[in-house]
């Protein structure tokens, strides 16, 4: 077997050296009822590299690949062009096959990268500090709600109806078991956000208000007034960013007073990957740093006075504090954080702003074209690269008809909110730099046909 270097002679010599007559002696502590005599029945035996590659390639061909035609899906996962050097660099064995940097003297590559990543995320979000990553945006969002509870010692979180429904589901799941109170609901098909209403709903029991920016319908709004209302009431404002490219064009949540900013970093460097692995971004004001979940990398010096980096403030974490830790997270999303960081380095501020502007311009062009289709209207007053169309009929079957015509035409709100008929005609459409003018024209023409 190609991954196993021990030879039969090695095994015999090593068994003899440890005083075992056979391999079974080393499994003597396994109870008799659980001992198997041979390979587990009902499973195939080993296969060559060629055979495995052939099998997996056959499965790969059974999906419609995003890049093979017009593609307009977003709703929390965005298709951007990732420069070739990103994937090359993350496959350097020294990054790919390293562990969490527990021995900093021989992990400065990972640690310096994490320090740079934290700095990039903090600046992108307009906050003081960021951690070394979470699993994804949805789990980062829940961790932020828990963190707000720890800081405020209050248990009621107000969720904007514009929060991604999966993020809301994750929060609901957890709140069921932790006893937190969530005030939430579905969005309505209106051009504006519900943030003014949220400001009025804050009370003395409110730990935090959670808003998404841009929100699930693509709407953007100024959160400064909401931040002031939170501050006045002793609650925290948590902003969730699922499309970080937007922050090359629109104000960062931290600039508008958000206390905790979390997000999904997938759009930068990581790729679609059918939903994972992604990279959760987590940032906050520096006064809350000791309540943060997850790993933090910090600067220090070595015994010779040279600058170096280590994992720090570990007394928050499970391997030290056990049941008193701020979170149970251990392994996070280091390699995806590296991909994010490399792509952000390639872009730089100038490139990020340009990329964001192209996305916005392309999305505006698409919105204009699609809103010309008879019966279709554009919901949003303002948006970045994703907007909501209101169709004259339910969007779900339309999506399938479009797919038959080779067009992946967005995410129907019916899929995201299956129980809410009032949203059934909504279609969330994302337009990135990967979409061409021909794609937009093909989508508009196909939509017109399907709706006719």
């Amino acid at each position, binding site marked *: *077997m190609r*991954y196993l270097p*021990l030879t039969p002679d*090695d095994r015999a010599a090593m*068994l003899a*050296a*440890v005083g075992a007559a056979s391999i079974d002696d080393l499994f003597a502590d396994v109870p008799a009822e659980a001992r198997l005599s041979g390979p587990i029945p009902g499973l195939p*035996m*080993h296969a060559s590299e060629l055979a*495995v590659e052939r099998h*997996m390639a056959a*499965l790969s061909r059974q*999906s*419609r690949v*995003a*890049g093979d035609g017009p593609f307009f899906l977003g709703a929390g996962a965005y298709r951007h062009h990732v420069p070739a*050097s990103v994937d090359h660099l993350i496959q350097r064995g*020294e990054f790919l096959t*390293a562990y969490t940097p527990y*021995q900093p003297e021989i992990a400065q590559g990972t640690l310096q990268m994490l320090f740079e990543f934290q*700095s990039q995320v903090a600046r992108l979000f307009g906050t003081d500090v960021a951690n*070394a990553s979470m*699993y994804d945006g949805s789990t980062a969002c829940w961790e932020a709600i828990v963190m707000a509870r720890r800081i405020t010692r209050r248990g009621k979180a107000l969720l904007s109806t514009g929060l991604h429904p999966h993020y809301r*589901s*994750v929060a609901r799941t957890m709140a*069921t078991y932790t006893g937190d109170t969530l005030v939430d609901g579905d969005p309505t098909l209106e051009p504006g956000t519900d943030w003014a209403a949220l400001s009025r709903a804050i009370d003395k029991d409110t730990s935090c208000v959670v808003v998404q920016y841009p929100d699930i319908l693509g709407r953007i709004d100024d959160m400064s007034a909401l931040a002031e209302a939170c501050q006045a009431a002793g609650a925290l404002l948590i902003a969730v960013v699922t499309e970080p490219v937007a*922050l090359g064009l*629109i*104000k*960062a949540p931290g600039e508008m007073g958000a206390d905790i900013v979390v997000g*999904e970093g997938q759009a930068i460097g990581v790729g*679609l990957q*059918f939903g*994972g*692995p992604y990279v959760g971004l987590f940032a906050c004001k520096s006064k809350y*740093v000791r309540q943060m979940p997850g*790993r933090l990398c910090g600067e220090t*010096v070595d*015994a010779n006075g040279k600058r170096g980096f280590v994992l720090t403030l570990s007394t928050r*974490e*499970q*391997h030290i*504090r*056990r*049941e008193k*830790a701020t979170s*149970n*997270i*251990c392994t*996070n999303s*280091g390699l995806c954080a*590296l991909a994010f960081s490399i792509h952000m380095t*390639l872009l*730089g501020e100038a*490139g990020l702003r340009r990329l964001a502007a192209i996305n*916005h311009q392309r999305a505006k062009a698409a919105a204009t074209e699609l809103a010309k289709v008879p019966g279709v209207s554009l919901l949003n007053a303002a948006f970045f690269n994703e907007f909501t169309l209101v169709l004259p009929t339910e969007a779900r079957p339309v999506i*399938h008809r479009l797919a038959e015509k080779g067009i*992946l035409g967005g995410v129907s709100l019916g*899929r995201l909110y299956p129980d809410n008929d009032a949203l059934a005609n909504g279609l969330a459409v994302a337009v990135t*730099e990967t979409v061409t003018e021909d794609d937009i024209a093909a989508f508009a023409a196909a939509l017109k046909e399907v709706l006719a």
Partner: protein
Amino acid sequence: MTALNPAGWRPEMNAGGADDSTTFTGNRALMLEEPLLFEIGSTETTGVDFDEDVAAADLGPLARSAPIGLPGLSESETVRHYTRLSRQNYAIDLGLFPLGSCTMKHNPRLNEKVARMPGFADVHPLQPQETVQGAYAVIHELAEWLVTLTGMHAVAMSPKAGAHGELCGVLCIKAALAARGEDRRVLLVPESAHGTNPATAAFAGFTVEDIPANAEGRVDLAALEERLGPDVAGVMITNPNTCGLFERDLKAISDAVHAAGGYIYCDGANFNAIVGRVRPGDLGVDAMHINLHKTFSTPHGGGGPGSGPVVLSAALAPFAPLPFVTKDGDRFRLIEEENAGEAHPDSFGRMTAFHGQMGMFTRALAYILSHGADGLKQVSEDAVINANYVLRSLEDVLEAPFAASGPCMHEALFSDKGLAEGFSTLDIAKGLIDEGYHPMTVYFPLVVHGAMLIEPTETESKAVLDQFIGALRSIALRAKNGDPALKSAPHFAPRARLDETLAARKPVLRWEG
């Protein structure tokens, strides 16, 4: 014991510390210093070309007008920056990485190739189901392997890592208890458990109580039985445990816990020791997470991403999270919120957006198919042979507290007993760095003083282990003899020992320039 490179550096050659000669650049030939991105980049520089010009956006007050402060580099500079950084890392590709409980085995490159196939890498999680049948097929095929290899009833694929899997299992237990109308608050967790176990239990609202261990390093069955009662929701147990021993009484423990109305959560971090040879389902386990980034060789990536599918017993399967993939005839179907009402009404809900770690599923499946049932059995056997070989080759020079408890499984545990005054496990770890190894897991499990937990894995040859054993033997002797040079190791790493106290006392967590 002959070292592979007997002509190379040996500790006694340079006991006084690193050569203090300096260079103009601070570099030492192939050991290259690299500044921070923020010291070499510029906000005006970009390494990406765009095809078009754009008009100014009309976003009014929402426009981001203030400087962001994100430095950019050209592509050539970017490649060099990260390549230079990479060379300051140790990695499994460079040598033995014997971190106990972490299963740092070889990461086959076929798996990387497969994960990048466009039908897996360039598909969106919310595409219409008829357009992603191949992606669902991968999830379903891997799920069937995991269920069969563990002898369990079902598997929840969406958890993002081991600790997330623990949370999944514990929430299944909570949901099952709620369905029975019971509010049991206590989870029993051994002191030797990974820190994630008590942290997970607490995160889910349970009270954590310790289970005592017996003298041989296993759970004390009698003490456990004594503690069971109507307030105990279950037990979180690691098998093989973190002392590297198989929990001989696990079936008896399961029977006792089940009889008392509780459930067994098994931490599957150490599944590599028994994969293909023992099915946890045969031992009465109700839920166990599987770290695909350990047993099934998906790369650790310097701290993730992981993937932690949770196999479940028939008792807990109805409560598994959404979404998941089922097969109807020759078509695959996703069960999510809109159809869960009929298909899976008792689910405790969603743990994450989307389907879990698809990129890890493809890698793990390629690895499993490569090994097959016969190869996986050989994996666990070779992992156990290698660990026992390390244990028995070093027990005369390092104290092995459970050497008399029988064979170890996939990892060998030593303590710091017998080292010279003032010398610690940390010194041995740093000495190993100078010898070209990543150190073992240190100071864990907590039940052993100055613990050193060594997991060689099955992908190391006998020659590599012989050299490692020789190196560790020499370092252990230096620690026993009080060699002062060991106190300042490492001498040959990119950095000497780092001041962790300073880092925590005055945290600098971002570039301030």
